[in-house]
Structures are given as C-alpha cells and as structure tokens.
C-alpha cells in the first residue's frame, strides 16, 4: 500500500472527514512530511471508492460550497488494520535488530 493511501485511510479511521479535512489530517499525522494536493487526493479517493475501502458518508453545503464527507467501510477498516499490523511488525523487527541488547 502506498504511503498516501495509508495516511488517507488513517485520517478516516477516527470518523468521517471531508476533502480539506483529510488533507490537513494527513499533514498532521505525517508530522508535516506529506502534504497532499487536491489532484492527488481525489485520484486516491476515486480509487479507494472503486475498491470499496471508503464510501461517501454525507454531503453538506457550507458557504455555498459543497463538502462531501467520506468514511471507512468495514473492508477499509480491515485493510487498514492489516497494513498497520504489518508496518508495526516490520518496525518492531527493525528496532529489535538495531538494539540487540534491548538498551
């Protein structure tokens, strides 16, 4: 899974979020390292919707502007959990090998 995809799914893990909210969440989660642009975001959202990992939760009109909220689907939660476990296991193994004495 690409990092941007993982971060978008992570941004939606806590609850539904609109496009700009996802961008700011991803920036925050990545510590400012990943700044998604709108084109990249909507390419990813389009693919995640096709893969049925996310779905549209609701739409709102704010200041005459459309906001569409997205949420994780049950499949999306499973995929994110599996990817997080995989990354966690890899990171744990790397840390253990860098500090064989445990210190």
């Amino acid at each position, binding site marked *: 899974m690409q990092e941007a995809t993982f971060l978008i799914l992570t941004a939606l893990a806590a609850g539904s979020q609109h496009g700009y909210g996802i961008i700011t969440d991803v920036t925050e989660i990545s510590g400012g390292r990943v700044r998604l642009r709108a084109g990249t975001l909507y390419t990813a959202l389009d693919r995640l919707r096709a893969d049925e990992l996310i779905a549209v939760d609701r739409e709102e009109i704010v200041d005459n502007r459309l*906001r569409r909220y997205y949420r994780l689907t049950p499949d999306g939660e499973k995929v994110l959990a599996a990817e997080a476990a995989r990354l966690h296991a890899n990171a744990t193994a790397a840390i253990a090998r860098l500090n064989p004495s445990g210190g």
Partner: protein
Amino acid sequence: MTTPNDLERGYRRLLAWYPRAFRSENEQEILTVLLEGAAEGQTRPRLAESADLVRAGLWKRFGPDLPTSARTVLTACRLMYLGALLEVAGLVTFVLTTGRLKAGFVRAYPDYTPHLWHVMTALIVAKEIAIPVAFAVWLILAWGNSRGRDWARVAFIALFALDTLGVVAAVGQREASFDPASLALSVTVWLIALTSMVLIFSPRSGPYYRPEPVRA
C-alpha cells in the same frame, strides 16, 4: 487587477482536464478543497497545484478505471502497453534491417523480375505503415480494456488473429522476407498478445467488463 474570482476561474480551467462525467460529479467538491487550501490573497493557481491537477486529470482520462482487485485485466493492460512499445522496437529493427532483407530477397530469388522487386518494395512500405498502425491499435485496446470496455476485449481477438497470421507468415518465409531480429520480435509480440488474451478472457476478468454506456 486580479480578484478571488480569477482564482476560482483558474481552478475551473485546470479542472477541465478531467473527463466531463467526473467533473459533473466532483468539480464543486474539488473546487471547495482548492479554495479552502488557497493562501490569503492568492489570486492564481500555484504552479505545483496546477501541475498536480493536470496530471490527475490526464490520469483520470487515460489511466485505468478498474478496482485494484481486477488484477488479471490490469496485468493484461500492462502487457498491451509493452506490446505497443515492442511494435516501436519492431519498426526500428525493421527499418534498420531493410538492407539485409533486400539482400536476402536477391539471394532467394536470383532471377527476380522488376515487377517482383516492386512487389517486394511495396510490401516493405506496407509493413512500415502497418507497424505504427498496430502501435496505435495496441494503445487504444490497452486503454479500452483498462476501463473495462467490452468492445476492447472483443476487438483484441481481431488483433490477436492478425498477429497470429503475421507470425505464421514470418516463420513460413523467414529466409526470404524476414530478418531474424524482426522475427524474434514478432514472436515475442505474439506471445504477449496470447498471454493478454488468456488474461482478459479468464473467468476472473469477466465481472470487470461492461458494455459501452448508452447516452441519454
């Protein structure tokens, strides 16, 4: 003097790179995100976000439009793009080896007549035209299949049949009309076509194909 409306107009112009169907569903939403992310006083799209929107719009137009689970179709499409590239390689090889090909013809038919020579030259020109056409057909069919279009899958049968005839002719006349390098490329392209055929007609691919949408 530029105004915030100029910024919105600029974004709308960039969003025109996306297909109409995608725009009608998503333009307002993307525009909201773009305007929310714009800096205070910004009156024009920045270069980086312009490039990002153009790239994403072109990808939406020409990239695959299938879920990741359509692995057999997506693999076949990658092979089709490879097939298109090999057609280009085939054209270069063919052009570079035309001299050897003519020498082979003279060896095979030492008593050739001017008429036979003209026929052979015409065949060379025909092949030089046919290869770029084949390149375009590979690209169009790769694009159509990557969007799950039924017509592209059916049309690929015709391409495969033509490729098969070409390879059979090449193998049958290899001493007179085909350079070994061209022959090897033709066989490789045929194998790619065969693998693509198997993949797009496999039971796993079936659910990802749909007929052409009917315009209202």
